[in-house]
Each structure stands twice: as C-alpha cells, then as structure tokens.
C-alpha cells in the first residue's frame, strides 16, 4: 500500500497535503493525531470514499494504481467509527452482505459467516439472528469487525473503531485486534487519536498534524526519539527546555541560556551558537534534596508546587527557580499509606537527569 504525493482539499481547506507513505503487507499501521489532522481523510482516500485532488498524486495497493477505482473495486474492507451496521438486517445477514455482493455460493457463505463470527468471539447460534439494535456497543463492534473480515480483504481499515466502548472492553479488544492482525496476515490501517492505543497496537505509527505526516516510526522511536515538540507533546508528556550550544567537552555539549545550564550528548549538526530545543520525559527526571550528590549531570534548582496522586505513579509539579517554568516529574508510587512521598508544596529541591535522556528536537518548540 502506498501514497505518492496525495493531497485532498475540501473547499478552501487542505485536509491532506502531499502525503507520501508506504505500508508493507501485514503491518499494523496507525495514523495518529488530534481531531482535524487529516487522519480520517487519509483513511477514506485509501478506501476510495474520497477522491484525491487531481494534482498528480496516486494511491497504490499491491503495486497497482487504484486512484480511479471505486471502493467496491478495491481489495479492502473497513470498520467504521460508529459501526455503520445495516439496521434492518440480522447479525448474520450483516456479516453475509459482502459475500452476497461477491456472489459467494450459499453453503460457503453460511460457513464463512459462522467461522468469522466465531473468530470475533460471537456465538453464531446465539447472535446470528439478533438485530443490531439488540446488541451492546462491544457486540456491535465485533459484528462490524466480522462483516469487514469475512470478505478476506488484503487491507483492513479501522476508523477509531474502539472510540465508543468502555475502557476495560477497549483494552481487551485492542489485544484481540493485535492477535487478528498477526494470525490473519492482513494489513491493518488504524486511525486513532488515542496515543496509548497507537503505542499498544502498532508496528509503526504515523503522527499527523494539519494534513501532514510529522513523523513515522515504531512506537519506541516515536516515544523515545520525537523529532518535534508536537510529537513529544502529543505522545505522552514532555518538559521542554531551550538554549544555545556553548561548548563541547568529553562528548557532551553544554547548553546555556534562559539563566540555566544543562548538557546533552554530542551529535552531528550542533556547533557553537546553535539554538537547541530539548524534551525530557517526566519519568526520566528525578527529584533530589538540594545538597545531595548525584551522578546525574543535569541539575536544576526548583520549588515543589504540587504533588498529584495518579494511582500507579505520582507526579511532582515543580517550578524552576531560574526561569519560573513548570516541570513535571513522574515518581513511582511506593504506597502513600505505608511509605509516603517526602515532598510537599513549597519544598526547595533539585531536578536531576542524565544528559542522554534529553531528546533533541529537530524542529522548534511551538
């Protein structure tokens, strides 16, 4: 599956701007971004439900250009955001719909409907004759999935399929989707605005913003090496620091400015005077008492403003003394009843971290 320079304009707004990306067969690929970033439009372009602008862009499936093909002429299937089940057809008839359109013989149709319902863990005997209105949200989701899978597409498109079901069921469905992707060998293209979901499910993620792909990579690359402030902020949480490269010593650059100093590992493209923006994940920071020695080279004095209880972790919100900017530090929860955290609002502390934990952003902080 490939997009080559595809754009889509609605009226005066560009939903997708010269998009190029390739997805190898069998991959679980996610399009991730805030609402209005063009991810759903991208999916609909691939499905053929939207026509791309006539400016030379093209879409290929298995190396064959499909730009001018109608949706029913493309070898793919789709799970819609609000299921889009046919309300007047029973579960079995819903699932059989695609097979009927392909004139699959009745006996095979019945068998495949039964097998596919079982695949998505719906008992065909129990649910086959029910109407969609008689099902719960999670069950409808499974029917929508079965309806899309039964035609054995080479690509399955999923448009925020888990958006409308509750958290616990969502976690379970995520694991099932991942397992289906692995066992069926179908390419999954998954649209979501939920960064955690994208990280859990995907082989690769494309982070989109304002109709463009900002970064493509495996979940770990996206999370641990965000190239821009947008990605660092959208995926997880980040603290941002900026300054000017001052000098290099022993493989470390000292960055100064804004009345504080920190170090980052030397890397190509940095010279004396380069403006530097870095992101530091809250879980890579540590809170220390002012006098305590630490092997972590980066040390910034700060004042604790708030301690927030999050369950498995705590978050210390601190104000940097020099710049008055807010930094967030995630601290493991070791049991607040037995072993409470020692920091209170107003405490003077030092925030420390390793130079190697600075994520140097290639684009400016927005």
């Amino acid at each position, binding site marked *: 599956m490939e997009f080559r320079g595809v754009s889509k304009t609605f009226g005066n707004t560009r939903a997708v701007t010269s998009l190029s990306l390739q997805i190898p067969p069998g991959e679980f690929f996610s399009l991730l971004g805030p609402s209005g970033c063009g991810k759903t439009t991208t999916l609909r372009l691939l499905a053929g*439900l939207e026509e791309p602008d006539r400016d030379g862009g093209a879409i290929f499936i298995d190396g064959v250009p499909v730009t001018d093909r109608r949706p*029913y002429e493309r070898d*793919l299937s789709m799970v819609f955001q609000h299921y889009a089940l*046919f309300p*007047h057809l029973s579960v079995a008839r819903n699932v059989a719909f695609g097979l009927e359109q392909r004139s699959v013989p009745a006996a095979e149709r019945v068998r495949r409907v039964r097998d596919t319902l079982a695949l998505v863990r719906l008992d065909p005997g129990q649910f086959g004759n029910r109407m969609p209105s008689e099902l719960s949200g999670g069950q409808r989701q499974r029917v929508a999935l079965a309806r899309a899978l039964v035609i054995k597409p080479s690509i399955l498109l999923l448009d925020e399929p888990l958006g409308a079901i509750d958290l616990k069921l969502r976690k379970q469905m995520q694991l099932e989707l991942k397992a289906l992707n692995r066992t069926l060998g179908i390419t999954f293209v998954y649209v979501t605005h939920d960064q955690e979901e994208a990280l859990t499910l995907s082989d690769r993620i494309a982070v989109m913003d304002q109709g463009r792909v900002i970064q493509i990579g495996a979940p770990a690359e996206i999370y641990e090496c965000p190239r821009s402030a947008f990605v660092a902020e959208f995926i997880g949480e980040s603290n941002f620091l900026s300054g000017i490269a001052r000098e290099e010593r022993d493989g470390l650059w000292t960055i100064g400015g804004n009345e504080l100093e920190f170090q980052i590992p030397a890397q190509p493209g940095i010279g004396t005077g380069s403006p530097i923006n870095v992101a530091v994940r809250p879980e890579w920071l540590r809170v220390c008492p002012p006098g305590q020695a630490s092997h972590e080279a980066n040390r910034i004095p700060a004042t604790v403003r708030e301690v927030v209880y999050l369950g498995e972790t705590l978050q210390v919100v601190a104000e940097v003394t020099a710049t008055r900017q807010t930094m967030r530090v995630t601290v493991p929860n070791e049991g607040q009843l037995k072993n409470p955290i020692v920091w209170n609002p107003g405490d003077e502390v030092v925030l420390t971290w390793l130079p190697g934990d600075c994520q140097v952003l290639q684009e400016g902080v927005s």
Partner: protein
Amino acid sequence: MKDVRKQRLLARIVSKPTTLLAPAGFWLLLFFIIPLGVMVVYSFMPRGIYGGVEPGFTLEHYLRFLDPLYLTILLRTVLMAAGCTAVCLLLGYPVAFAISRARRWKHILLLLVIMPFWTSFLVRTFAMIFLMRDTGLINTTLMRIGVITEPIVMLYTPFAVMVGLVYTFLPFMILPIYASLERLPNSILEAAEVLGAKPAARFRRIILPLSGPGVVAGSLLVFVPALGSFIPSDLLGGAKQMLIGNLVQNQFGAARNWPFGSAASFVVMGVVLIGVLVYLRSGRGEVTTALQDAG
C-alpha cells in the same frame, strides 16, 4: 401562591404528558366523533323529502350501492387513487432522495416542495384548466412550434383528473420519504460500498428497505385523501369522470339525499380501512423493524 399552583400544574403535565392530548381530543370529539355518529344514524334512516331524514330504519342506502352504476364509480375511484399513489411514488421517491443527499440546496428544495400550499388548492386546479384545455398553453405552444396540428384533448379526460390528483398530492409523498431518507446515515451507504455493493445493489438492499416506513406513510397520505377527493375530478374530469367524492358531495348538495351521502361516505371509509390493513400487513415485518431501528 398562584405561582406555586401554576408550577404544580406544569409539573403534573410534564410528569403525565398524556394530559396534553385533552384539548385536541376534545376538539375531535366535538367536530369528528359526534358528527360521525350522526352520520351513522342518518345512513340507516329513510330520506326526508326536502333533505334531512325521517324517523325509521332502512338498509336501502347501502343496498343501493350494489347497483353497477355505483360499483363502477367505486371501482374507478379506487383505481384512480391507486394510480395516483403509484405515480406519486415514482415521481416523488427520486425527488426525496435527491433532496435528502443535497447539502447546500436542501432547505431551498424543501421550500419548493411545499410552495404550492401557499396558494389556494382551488385556484391551482383552475389554473390547470387553462394549461390543459384545447386552446390552453400546452396545446397552443405545441401547435405553434409545429409538433401537432390538432389540439390534443386533455381536459375532461381521466388523464386530466390523474394530473390534477398527482399534482395535488405529490408533496405528501415526497415529505415522509424525505424524512426517512434523511435519517439514513451516509456511513451505512459507504459501508455497503466498501463491502462491494454497486449503486444498484446499494439502492435495492439498503436504501429502499430503510426508507420503507416513509414509503408506507407517503402512500397512505396520498391514497386515502385521493380516494375522497372531488375537486380535481369535478373541475378537470367533467361529469364523465365522477368519483365517489363527487357522489357524496352531490348527495349532500344538489340531490338532497343525506342518508345516501352518509352511506357512500361509510363505504369509502370501509374501503380505506380494508386497503390500509392489507397494505400494512403485507409489509409489516420490514416496516416495524425498520421503524424500531430508526427510533
């Protein structure tokens, strides 16, 4: 003090909304149920010489309907109303579909559909006479551009009555179908398309069944009043195209035979009731499930 009472009254109405049926129910009782009862009684009483009725009981007015003359009128009326319903469906469905999928023009198109209601129905029917008569707009235009040499006789034919009926009742077909199609989400059609359904299959398998309730409602809204209408047949059909509506009007008017007019009304009501029951039963499964799902 008064405010408190008002609040309580409002609270009671809100908690029991069926009380809101009372005003309209009273209206219908006074001006529909009671007159209907009067008509039932009249239809079994001997005719008075100067209109009205005389005391007594008789079945003669109903038995009179077995006369081929009246059976023909009844049959003609049913066929005319059914034909009008079919033509309205064929013309109205595509219009309703187009309006439901229009984006910017939707409201203007809907306005155009109900625009005819802004002028009197009677005036509009008279206008059709000027269009269809031998020296009317259609014939003179066709003759001037040389398509025909002799005027086509349209006025005072069943064709003219049909045109008048269809013109009158078309909006009643379009609006309910539009309402049912409007609720049909695009994503359902897109799902069908992605699953391999070409346009014809999408229409047959998805759009048509899901607009079933609208088709049923529209057909009833056209068929029932068409069955009782008398102005189009009176003005456009001449005496030869008498429908049962004209008969009833005549009996209460010029003929001064109120009991027979009442009996004729009840025969029409009987036909409507039977027709509607048969129609609803034939498509009940689909219609009720579609209704449930829509709701």
